[in-house]
């Protein structure tokens, strides 16, 4: 009995530490848009936006209240007819490239895009050299 009371009290006292608001989720946090095409556009965008509080999830995956509020923003703006890329730009303007999972070519990221091309070219040169050498040797023997 006493143990149960202690358990109850510790749980009751611990509750305020779980810093979570008591407000219901924003209108469009968990509700889809009525227009399937618009919902699809919103969903595609939400999959590529990063949650601010749980940084390895997209806002489509996260149950954090702030991710819910961000989904609400995205859906409301799409419902108003805004372009998904404009919404992405609006967020990047505030949080930097960080908030988007869609990589952009910038002065800092261009080597990432250039590297595969350079490597392919390099490989082609090496392979070409090998083959021509092998052919030359094959011809001699």
């Amino acid at each position: 009995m006493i143990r149960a009371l202690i358990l109850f009290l510790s749980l009751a006292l611990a509750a305020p530490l779980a810093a979570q608001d008591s407000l219901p989720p924003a209108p469009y946090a968990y509700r889809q848009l009525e227009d399937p095409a618009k919902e699809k556009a919103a969903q595609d965008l939400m999959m590529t936006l990063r949650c601010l509080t749980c940084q390895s999830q997209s806002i489509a995956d996260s149950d954090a209240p702030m991710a819910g509020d961000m989904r609400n923003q995205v859906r409301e703006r799409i419902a108003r007819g805004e372009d998904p890329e404009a919404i992405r730009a609006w967020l990047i303007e505030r949080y930097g490239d960080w908030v988007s999972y869609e990589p952009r070519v910038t002065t800092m990221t261009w080597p990432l895009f250039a590297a595969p091309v350079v490597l392919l070219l390099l490989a082609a040169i090496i392979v070409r050299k090998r083959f021509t050498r092998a052919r030359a040797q094959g011809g001699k023997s």
Partner: protein
Amino acid sequence: MKHWAIWLPLALFGLLFAVFASGLIAPGDRTIASQMIGKPLPDFDLPQAVPDRPALAKADFTGGKPKLLNVFASWCVPCIAEAPVLAELARAGVEIDGVAIRDRTADVQQFLARNGNPYTRIGRDDVSKIQFDLGSSGVPETFVINGKGIITYQHIGEIRADQVPMILQKLKEAQ
């Protein structure tokens, strides 16, 4: 194979080791700084959070005097620790305007009754819109807004007692 080439795998290993070690010893900074510093405050017009403080809109920040815009919530634990520091800033003559994020009037009232009320105005935002407008990613955060409505500084997390002079300096710079 040239004899120096046998050291190549070891060198590569050393390089990778250094990369991983540096990542483990000093993990990257995970805070997301707002890109809105130096830009004007976006338009907003929030309803009243509590009956005894007026509502908050962008127009309240263009009066010529630098102010603090504090984003807080009654459910936010660090905000309790920050409350006495904000009270100290208010005593120093700083005008602090607050926005209660995802909060109920009764809860805000209880929070202010318990921890003091340093705010001149308090707006209420149930969908965190102001945070997206400001480039803020959590509570508490405090922004220095100069008299023309330009954001000049973002403080992420609670303001600690030893950071009061720094905040006062930022307000002075915003003048």
